């Protein structure tokens, strides 16, 4: 390119191509009829196999069986494809044993969120509660699921395992934008795929025996 344009900038460029031979079109192809017959045979094969399998309920299970083996449609609302184990679905807020959210309103998730779809209003525990000054709780915890990009950074950022995306449910299509604003109660109502609202990670509240405390001996709090 560069050579030819520098040697003759205005003249016609010599184009060098690789000769490609024309495809051989014998009498069978030209006559068109044998090829029609082949095509019809393939169509009829699919027709008979798939019609029979639909009629006899032998049809392919697209999640379990090879996609070459028949009809692979999933009739969506009635049949659903389960998502993979690590699929990031709709968020849930995990519970403590007493049913309150594990969230301590540290704002790590809303800080990490690239879409800025998490809104948290932190509240202080009342005076006398051992947790006052130690941790806070979310008075409001709102996720705009329409703005969320399902990156999972909030889950990574959470120090308390309080927010998870393991519900196995995709964000459902609603008919108004307000319905995509998920409030705390709704987020807490979703169970994980195992049906549980808690997590396997134990929580050690201040004042409990399992809490490590501030001394090496495990007491003094």
């Amino acid at each position, binding site marked *: 390119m560069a050579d030819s344009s520098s040697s003759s900038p205005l003249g016609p460029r010599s184009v060098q191509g690789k000769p490609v031979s024309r495809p051989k079109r014998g009498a069978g192809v030209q006559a068109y009829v044998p090829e*029609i017959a082949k*095509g*019809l045979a*393939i*169509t*009829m094969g*699919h*027709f*008979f196999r*798939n*019609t*029979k*399998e*639909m009629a*006899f*309920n*032998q*049809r*392919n*299970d*697209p*999640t*379990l*069986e*090879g*996609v070459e*083996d*028949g*009809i*692979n*449609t*999933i*009739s969506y609302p*009635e*049949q*659903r*494809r*389960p*998502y*993979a*184990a*690590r*699929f990031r679905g709709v968020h849930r807020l995990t519970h403590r044993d007493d049913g309150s959210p594990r969230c301590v309103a540290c704002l790590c998730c809303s800080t990490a969120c690239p879409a800025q779809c998490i809104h948290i209003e932190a509240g202080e525990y009342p005076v006398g509660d051992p947790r006052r000054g130690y941790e806070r709780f979310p008075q409001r915890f709102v996720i705009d699921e329409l703005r969320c990009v399902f990156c999972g950074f909030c889950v990574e950022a959470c120090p308390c395992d309080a927010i998870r995306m393991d519900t*196995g449910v995709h964000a459902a299509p609603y008919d108004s934008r307000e319905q995509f604003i998920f409030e705390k109660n709704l987020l807490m109502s979703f169970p994980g*795929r195992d049906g549980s609202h808690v997590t396997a990670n134990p929580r050690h509240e201040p004042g409990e025996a399992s809490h490590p405390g501030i001394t090496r001996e495990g007491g003094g709090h």
Partner: protein
Amino acid sequence: MNFTLIEFGLFFLKAFVVVMFAMNVAVILTWADRRQGSMIQDRVGPNRAVAWIPTKVAMVLAVLPALGLAAGVLGLVARTDFEGPTRSFASVALSQLAIFWVWLTGIIIAGRVADRGVKNSFDAFIASVGDPRRFFYGGLAAHFLAFAIGAVYRGTEIGQTVEQAGISAGAGLFAFAVLFGAGYAAYSIRNEPRVGLRLLGLLHPAADGLKTIFKEDFIPPNADKFLHSIAPVIAFFPALVVLGVVPFGDSLCFGADPATGRLAIDQLMTTVPAEGCNGVALPLQVASLNVGVLYFFALGGTGIVGAALAGWASDNKYSLLGGLRAASQMVSYEVTMVLTLIGAFMIYGTVRVEDMVRWQAANTWGIFVQPLAFVLFFTASVAESKRIPFDLPEGESEIVAGYYTEYAGMKFAMFFFAEYIAVVTGSALMAALFLGGWDLPFLRPDGLYVAIGDTVFLQEALPHPAIVAIGALGFVLKTLFLCWVQLTIRWTLPRFRYDQLMRLGWRKLLPASLANVLATGLLILAVQSAGPRVVSALAIVSDLTKALLAVGGIVVGIVFVLFLLKPAKKRRLLATTSAQFAAALGGTRSARMSA
């Protein structure tokens, strides 16, 4: 020409049946085109339209028709006094029908039990049989056994009793099986909150059709409003009425009213001679015109006017191009269509479709004497209906939607529907001209008559109405088969270029049809100048073609049954975690999954 009231009523009934046949098959084709057209691509296709009906109503809907059918069969058997060939035929038909219904019900219930698991003791009993195919094998054995018993005791002293037993037990068993199947269906849905009626997705084209009625009827501002509105009617009407000359069955033979000598509706003959009718014949054909099949082409040709008018009246360049394309294409292929039939006219010696079918019944099917004509006519007929691979007038990749670019709502639906009806009528005409119409091999008007030349292998008298009904059913099946082949072509082939279309029509099909006329003429001359030995040899050959058809039909049936019995070949893959979840839930096919 004056009609009696009964004749007028029968005429009206025949016209109604023909129109309903064309329109209903067209709806089914619309459905099959979408649904099966998806299935050949390994998709399910549109089947989402559903009518939710309350469970109680659904249970009544399941049981009520079964009650009517059972009562009708039992009442018919109790009231009718069967005699002669009608008696043995009724015995065989009823017992075989009952056995068929029993194993069919069994295999359906067994399939359902295998899918959803055992729920009660009856399910457990069905499941204990094992593979659902065993119901079919058992049914097959019962079919042969019942037939053999009837054949062995035929004409003996006990024969009368056996025949009577076949009639009574057959009717009783059939009524029981029908009621049991319906009752089981009603019982198995009793706990459902509501029942969705989908009819295999057939509601989907119905919903689409209803939708078009309520859509906006748009007429472009500068269009010719009158012509724009009348074009779909002009395209629709001829497609519907051309079936009038096509017979859909052999003539029904009635007795004559002694007072007037006209047809007596209550005296349907049970036996007729092998040739002709010894009473008053009722042709199963709306109009027996002396111009015969020319009526088909004369009226079918006016369909061109509809397409051309639609293109011109729309005030749209694409519409005009589409209209021009439609007009030139249909005119071109109409020439081939009619010229192709000249050879058939020469051989059949008539232009009346009913006489053509009679010739084929007496000799051999048209496809054997005019094979090239069949191929040419089939191709031209597909092109005539303006459908893939000849849908240039529509040509959405080039001219938007061709001549119906500016049509919406019901007017568009009429064009669309007219195309499908043209497929049905074209298939019906081809079935009548080349596939023997209502003729089935070795089925004469007086019964089964298996003979090659003068050697008679099997002769069996059958009642006249049953033979006519079987013939009409055969005609319908042949028509549906040709429709299906056209659909398969539509699903397979890509669209032609316009110059290719014209070259195929004028430079290939037209000379070939002229050559066919020449060859047919030479053949007829050769046969006429040959001696009687050649003629008798040809008669044997024509009987052999019928035997070939009969054997071929039986072989195709056996292969089809074997295909149905073959288990589906599936490879199970559990590579992903989602597949493992699905497997734990029982799969997507039968279980409802919510994860």
